[in-house]
């Protein structure tokens, strides 16, 4: 398929033609949850900006945030001259970083070190 055809198809069918994803590097980027998201509106040229309700992360940080737009959102923004600008925002929660535990049967002796007391 040519690039032009792909672009047209994307425009025609798109639920989300452009994504911007920010993901924490390394182990922190391995998220704890599936993507959850909502459509947020910026109204009155930014006078009113909705914030996402992140209620699923159990006090943990975010591992990844994706912002998406599509042709419908772009049209709304253009037709309202920027008065109303919708965006879709999705997030994945970070994992907790628990301290290691002991299964409870005799603790492991600490390794000997070269440094004396």
């Amino acid at each position: 398929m040519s690039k032009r055809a792909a672009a047209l198809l994307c425009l025609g069918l798109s639920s989300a033609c452009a994504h911007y994803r920010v993901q924490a590097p390394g182990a922190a980027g391995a998220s704890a949850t599936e993507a959850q998201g909502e459509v947020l509106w910026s109204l009155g040229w930014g006078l009113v900006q909705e914030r996402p309700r992140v209620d699923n992360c159990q006090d943990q940080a975010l591992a990844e945030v994706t912002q998406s737009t599509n042709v419908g959102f772009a049209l709304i923004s253009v037709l309202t001259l920027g008065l109303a600008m919708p965006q879709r925002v999705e997030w994945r929660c970070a994992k907790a970083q628990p301290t290691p535990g002991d299964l409870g049967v005799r603790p492991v002796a600490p390794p000997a070190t070269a440094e004396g007391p």
Partner: protein
Amino acid sequence: MPPVIHESSQKRWQNWHQSYIQKLELLVDVWNEDASQSTVPGYIDTTRGLQGLIQRALTQRLELRGLGGGWSFTKAPATSGILVNTRPLNYLFPAPRTHPAHPGRREDLLFTQCGVSVAELNHFLKRIGKSLTTSGASNGQTIAGAIGTGTHGSNLETGAMQDFVVGLHLVVSPDRHVWLERASAPVINDEIPQKLGAELVRDDALFNAALVGLGGFGLVHGVLMEVVDLYYLQAYRRRMPLTEELWRAFDQLDFSGITLPGPPGLKPYHFTAVINPNDMDRGVFVTVMYKHARCPEGSTPPSPGSKLTQGDNGLEIIGVLTDMVSELTIPLLSRLMDRFYTEYENVCGTHGELFTDTTTRGKAWGSAVAVPLGRVRETVELALAINRAQPFPGLFGLRYTLPSRATLAFTQHAPMTCILDIDGTASTRTKSYNRRVWQQLAKSSIPHTYHWGKFHELDGPAVRGRYGEAHVNAWLEARRTLLPTPELRAAFANDYLRGLGLA
């Protein structure tokens, strides 16, 4: 205190590689009540929480599935019923007390909850001076998900990831959970399963079957694994002409006719190849890594933040490239490979530093077929011949592993299994190409099996034909033993297992 079970409002779920969308009844995230500290009471409470979810599935006559990283291309983790996201469950318990007959050191054992990712494991193990023996090229999978589908690396001295697992804690019903290990090699001290309230079952057949259990043996809550002292890998990647001698290396792992990159006289610990079937005149990429107790002088550390890293293979390459461009053509793939998948010399880091990829997504589509040594060249040439007739924008990868003891491991071929990865963009062309390869392989005499987590078109008869009647029957028998009622077996079944004749 009971675990936090968060019910999501979403009724559809998509896997990490975005190859399908599954409608479902309920998606729940399960978090330990105290997520900040690994405790035995917390672990026990979470076991009870998982049992409550099984009860709910039975009461509502729904299927139930444990979800890990969702890394599989296939519908192995998918369900129309209750999808239990286990990724928040990441308690760690190093050095548990061992059985008197266990010959190893307790410091070489690590018990973890199912949701610990391979990346987290690498990170934690480095801190305590330990390492995994092997993992896949990418590391976003959870430990339970990785072993459940038989994830493998290309380490010439060990098997796939399930082969370093020595104990499993399975939650199999609302009123039963078992600690499973081999009778021939008991590892855990009897007091520990007792302390967890688990029924201790030592049985080789049950354990080997449940290792690559495809989610069909209940919820894997805990995994006991053997780890090794921290080691370093000195890595090289070079583009080499595909000579008769290099073919012999691929086919037999006979390196006598070639000069591998790196210091002479050392035996490779890791060996892999990436072949662009549409750009072979310029050679194929060979990656070799040598194991050391510490990095040799003069070596350089891996560069964090680069798009492709030292351990990346065909799937990671395609994933990264299709994240950058929406349409990957044959010429564009070659050009992007030149830019991003380059030769390197004498890079040294830990296992976890060289196999770092947690981010690959893109629009990749891949299959992997395993064959025994001695049939590798024949398999690759079959795939190359089909590509000449119907070229596709994709890559072949060759990786190697020792045969697994898991009953339904696809890496089962002795004396050594070679895995031919065929990875491309998620396009009709790639799918059609793969189907032709599968059809030709089915007509050939080459013994072969397919990766459970990558695309294939296996059905019941094909599974029995490829993996062996005895293996399939043993796996099903073990499943009936651990899940003794039809209701339990139905709860832990899904379309994927039914399609394979394994439900």
